[in-house]
């Protein structure tokens, strides 16, 4: 289009956009070479292998929870606050529930919910971002202001407010987290769409008589969702964390659901019973870490700029 002679001042919220901007078409072959030399297949990177193993393990644990958990996660045994022992490897909590069993069943909440949150946010943000980017003008401006508005509330406070307003429940927690997280995807997709809108392949298609809808479907969408999908994998870990945070504040899935964040909250009342908090925390840590490493690796694959572990 025009020759932009000055770089527009990027705003802080454009960060998400620039995080995963367009894959480079032209670069010196030297640089490309450097990039590819490090582009090992996923399975060749030990860190990735570890993370995939952890994730698969957690998925198996979630799937086979009834077989793995030694006890009913809700059963209140007589002995409360048992420290870790042979019978209760991770101890029992205030109500005498087996912490290991609760952890195992907790995987059935955290992991699928994170997926749902991210998928919904991606869907909502994706559609809006696509529409805004493609239609431009007023629609675009309105959407950008809306995302600004959401960004202007700190995520956890907004999620808290939404969740507090509608009462704690799994559905409301998911809703709250989707509300705070969709704008990132909208922005990323929008900026990707804006890039594609200036691409010659789209122009070429339109010149050949391809209609706007078909062009959207074939040229715009496939070339703009990539960055958002990468971002989504990176956000999976974040979703687990945010959900746990809401639960910790008592705004997540209702008790007695063995949600990990809520389990940590139980332990926070009495530090001397360290096992009540420590193990759920480790569970969150491993899952989030695995998600993050995997997201990183995936991004490396999709965007060669990030080859060899370059991130964000």
């Amino acid at each position, binding site marked *: 289009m025009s*020759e932009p*002679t*000055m*770089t*527009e*001042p*990027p*705003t*802080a*919220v*454009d*960060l998400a956009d*620039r995080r995963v901007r367009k894959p480079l078409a032209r670069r010196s072959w030297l*640089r490309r070479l450097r990039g590819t030399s490090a582009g090992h297949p996923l399975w060749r990177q030990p*860190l990735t292998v570890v993370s995939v193993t952890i994730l698969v393990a957690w998925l198996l644990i979630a799937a086979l929870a009834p077989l793995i958990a030694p006890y009913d996660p809700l059963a209140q045994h007589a002995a409360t606050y048992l420290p870790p022992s042979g019978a209760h490897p991770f101890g029992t909590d205030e109500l005498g529930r087996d912490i290991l069993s609760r952890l195992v069943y907790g995987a059935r909440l955290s992991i699928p919910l994170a997926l749902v949150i991210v998928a919904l946010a991606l869907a909502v943000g994706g559609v809006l971002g696509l529409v805004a980017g493609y239609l431009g003008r007023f629609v675009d401006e309105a959407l950008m*202001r809306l995302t*600004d*508005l959401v*960004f*202007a*509330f*700190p*995520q*956890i*406070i907004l999620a*808290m*407010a*939404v969740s*507090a*307003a509608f009462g704690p429940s799994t559905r409301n927690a998911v809703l709250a987290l989707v509300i705070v997280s969709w704008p990132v995807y909208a922005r990323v997709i929008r900026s990707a769409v804006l890039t594609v809108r200036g691409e010659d392949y789209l122009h070429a298609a339109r010149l050949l008589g391809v209609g706007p809808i078909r062009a959207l479907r074939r040229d715009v969408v496939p070339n703009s969702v990539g960055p958002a999908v990468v971002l989504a994998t990176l956000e999976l*870990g974040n979703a687990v*964390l945010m959900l*746990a*945070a809401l639960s*910790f504040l008592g705004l997540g899935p209702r008790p007695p659901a063995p949600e990990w*964040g809520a389990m*940590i909250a139980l332990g*926070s009342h009495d*530090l*001397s019973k*360290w096992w009540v*908090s*420590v193990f*759920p*925390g480790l569970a*969150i*840590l491993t899952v*989030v*870490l695995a*998600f*993050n*490493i995997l997201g*990183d690796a995936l991004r490396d694959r999709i965007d060669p*700029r*990030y080859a*060899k*572990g*370059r*991130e*964000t």
Partner: protein
Amino acid sequence: MTATTTAAAGTRPAARRPRVPNLVRFLGKRVAITIGLLWGVTVVTFALVHVVPGDAATANLSEQALNDPAVVAAYRAKWGLDQPIWQQYLHYLGNLLHGDLGTSQQTGRPVLTDLVQYVPATLELAVPSMILALVVGTAVGMLAAVRHGRASDQVVRVGSLLGLSTPPFWLSLVVLYLFFYLLGVSPSGGRLSPQFAPPPSVTGMYTVDAALAGQWAAAWDAVQHLVLPVLVLTCLTVATLIRFVRSAMLEVLQQDYIRAAYAKGLPTRTVLGRHLLRAGLVPVITVSGLAFASLLSGTVLVENIFGWPGLGQYAFRSATGLDLPSILGVSLFVALVYTGVNLLVDLLYGLIDPRIRLS
């Protein structure tokens, strides 16, 4: 090839002289956007609070008072809750224009007074964390970028991923368990040990105020209370920063001008310290703005655990008490900080990158 030439063509210093109105226009536009944003915040907050079943009367009257319609009516009349919502809203806006944020139904004090008190407490946590995170994050991120692919880079990478993956509230509990419960070397929470009275308020930050008042023991005590929460918040922020700095620096390291700097015979120190840092700082500033915003929200949980009477606690209390004026006050403040930080980031950009200056 041609694209670069095209962009470069026909540009000479004379054509580029920044004109003063540019800055005015820029700031004017930003102020307009900010005002629009703040207006949006009031609308959303009003709407959100009114969707919720139950109102401030329920939250703020005693139970037996609720059984008395006369009392409830009096309360609603006093706080203007008996008016239609749009009238309440207009009334609020009118007061807002006069700088009146209303009175908190929870504390019975002007919201502004509450903010003046809670904000410094949060800043006392957030500012040191941010500074620490910036210094450490920039240094470590740069180191990792320069040592790209080597063992130290891998260690940094795993470390920052770990930092990103740790639930902050859990980390708070773990450090409390370690340093307070097991080792007994740190206080459990709060801003000041009980034996100290809060210092006379100047900045609202106990460390500073105590030092100003010459109460050194109290200042030292306040610093000790800061250590753990600041540590946790720094851990959170530094992980993001390291990742970002590292990739930004890597991007810069691949630029021709870095090679050109080496080709000129400059020592590594100069190349990294001047050329790399300068260019890598631009994206770092962006992310710092975001990081500061997320730091402010990260304090909610940390404040909760460390019993820190800051903005997060206030927000939490306002939200659960459906205290509309307070919620609005907090939301407006946060939005203002958000836009302010953004503006600051943009101005800093201009300061560092001449290409963006006053465009």
